[in-house]
């Protein structure tokens, strides 16, 4: 069976020629990962995508007609970058635009994986939450202040939609591996091989040389092994590259943790089949007794205004700590009657130092955008003209690269939930829909 990965992230682009090569033979399934937590908590909170709309549309529009032509179900994981309901709807809207522009029609499956605060609290009170780090135990308060919480689905809801003959499946927050493992397991292939293959495929052509998340990857799964070969003829898979890929972004290179269990790569074997193809065998799946789903939630911590600047004068750099103290005290004193002291937070993000110049970002997070703006303006102006002993450059301490100097960043989010929830069924958090679209 042949599975194709469009690339490592929907919207990052890929070679159209490589896509043509991939589809020059029968393709059984097409997949693409569309999200990640790497860009941080902002996107889950704001409902926005870190990928660009027109780039996402380009990547989808080229691939969709080919997938339909091959009757290869097209599985898209973590829609819109973060996979909440708003992200899924954003991607669905782009997809439906393509459907009407190209006059396509098919069965569209959708999996929403948002969970309510009430659901999480019930899990917490029922002792069904597992901490992923000692430093972040889940509390009732953390759940209650969360704006959005999603669960990371595994293969179960995707298999459910494949059973119901969906041609395209858009998933909310999903395990990257589920996209590629689900069709294999649905077709009766070994789960150890399926998950290992999926772990490599979810990054597109990252496992090839030259390395590229932005290109098409192909996998062929058999009864006792799978083979990987990049679609683009300029790239090749090597044993080293493929084996090394299981190190990437994983805490343990031998074990891949899934909602269904663990994929153990201790005895995996990698062989070079030809110049561009690697065969993998020996990966083993162990089903977990207790099934878990990972939860990701964010809270809004305020509003941010920043001001980037550079200090080139070595004497000013040497007095920087003293300047920071003077400025901080001044702002405190200046706002004590107008702003509650817990309504803002000032920090200075610096890089470089005495040997070169000092880059500084004045970072203010306030309870409102207005508070952040006010405090940032005070810090910036006081810092610009702050005196110190022996100062010769009395015209100003900061070089601003921009006018305006202060940038309104808007809402600030932080992860509030990042935990595992024990579930009775891996479909427990999935809301599955199936509809005819087009024509």
């Amino acid at each position, binding site marked *: 069976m042949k599975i194709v990965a469009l690339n490592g992230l929907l919207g990052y682009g890929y070679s159209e020629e490589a896509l043509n090569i991939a589809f020059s033979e029968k393709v059984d399934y097409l997949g693409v990962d569309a999200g990640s*937590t790497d860009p941080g908590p902002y996107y889950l909170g704001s409902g926005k995508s870190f990928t660009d709309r027109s780039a996402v549309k380009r990547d989808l529009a080229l691939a969709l007609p080919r997938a339909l032509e091959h009757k290869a179900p097209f599985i898209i994981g973590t829609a819109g970058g973060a996979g909440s309901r708003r992200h899924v709807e954003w991607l669905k809207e782009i997809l439906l635009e393509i459907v009407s522009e190209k006059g396509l029609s098919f069965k569209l499956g959708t999996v929403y994986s948002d969970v309510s605060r009430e659901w999480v609290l019930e899990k917490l009170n029922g002792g069904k939450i597992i901490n992923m780090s000692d*430093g972040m135990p889940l509390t009732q308060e953390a759940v209650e202040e969360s704006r959005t919480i999603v669960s990371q689905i595994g293969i179960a809801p995707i298999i459910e939609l494949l059973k119901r003959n969906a041609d395209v499946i858009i998933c909310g927050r999903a395990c990257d591996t589920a996209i590629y493992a689900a069709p294999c397991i649905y077709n009766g292939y070994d789960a150890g091989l399926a998950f290992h293959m999926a772990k490599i495929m979810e990054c597109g052509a990252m496992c090839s040389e030259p390395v590229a998340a932005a290109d098409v990857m192909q996998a062929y799964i058999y009864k006792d092994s799978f083979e990987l070969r990049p679609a683009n003829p300029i790239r090749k898979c090597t044993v080293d590259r493929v084996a090394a890929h299981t190190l990437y972004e994983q805490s343990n290179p031998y074990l891949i943790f899934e909602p269904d269990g663990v994929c153990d790569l201790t005895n995996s074997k990698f062989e070079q089949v030809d110049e561009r193809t690697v065969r993998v065998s020996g990966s083993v799946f162990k089903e977990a007794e207790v099934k878990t789903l990972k939860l990701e939630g964010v809270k809004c911590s305020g509003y941010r205004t920043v001001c980037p600047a550079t200090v080139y004068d070595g004497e000013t750099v040497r007095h920087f700590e003293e300047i920071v103290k003077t400025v901080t005290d001044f702002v405190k004193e200046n706002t004590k009657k107008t702003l509650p002291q817990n309504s803002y937070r000032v920090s200075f993000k610096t890089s470089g130092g005495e040997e070169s110049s000092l880059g500084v970002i004045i970072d203010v997070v306030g309870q409102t955008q207005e508070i952040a703006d006010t405090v940032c303006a005070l810090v910036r102006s006081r810092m610009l003209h702050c005196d110190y002993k022996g100062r010769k450059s009395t015209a100003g301490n900061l070089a601003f690269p921009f006018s305006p100097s202060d940038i309104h960043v808007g809402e600030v989010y932080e*992860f509030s939930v990042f935990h595992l929830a024990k579930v009775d069924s891996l479909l427990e958090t999935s809301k599955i829909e199936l509809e005819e679209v087009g024509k």
Partner: protein
Amino acid sequence: MKRLIDYTKILRSKNAGPLYITFDLIFNTREDMIYVSRRLTKEQISTAYSVPVEKIDVIVYEVVNSIKITFPRKNISGSLNDNDVYGCQQHKPLAELEIGE
């Protein structure tokens, strides 16, 4: 004295989820991997990153002559005190550790 980076072909850091940071050291030869794995201590890593020894995981992955190091991030990715959301520029203190004879 040679630094850790002098032994490696690849030395990188990256988030392993927003709560953890992971480092991959890939060596040109198996001999280099063994040499370093016998000398690099958790205590050195603990000092370089101010992280308790018991929170540090070191795994030798022989398949590609590599060593993986993982520990909890001091600041969760994207939190107010964080300076590296993707965690991909945290390898410098590790790269500069001195590896003894």
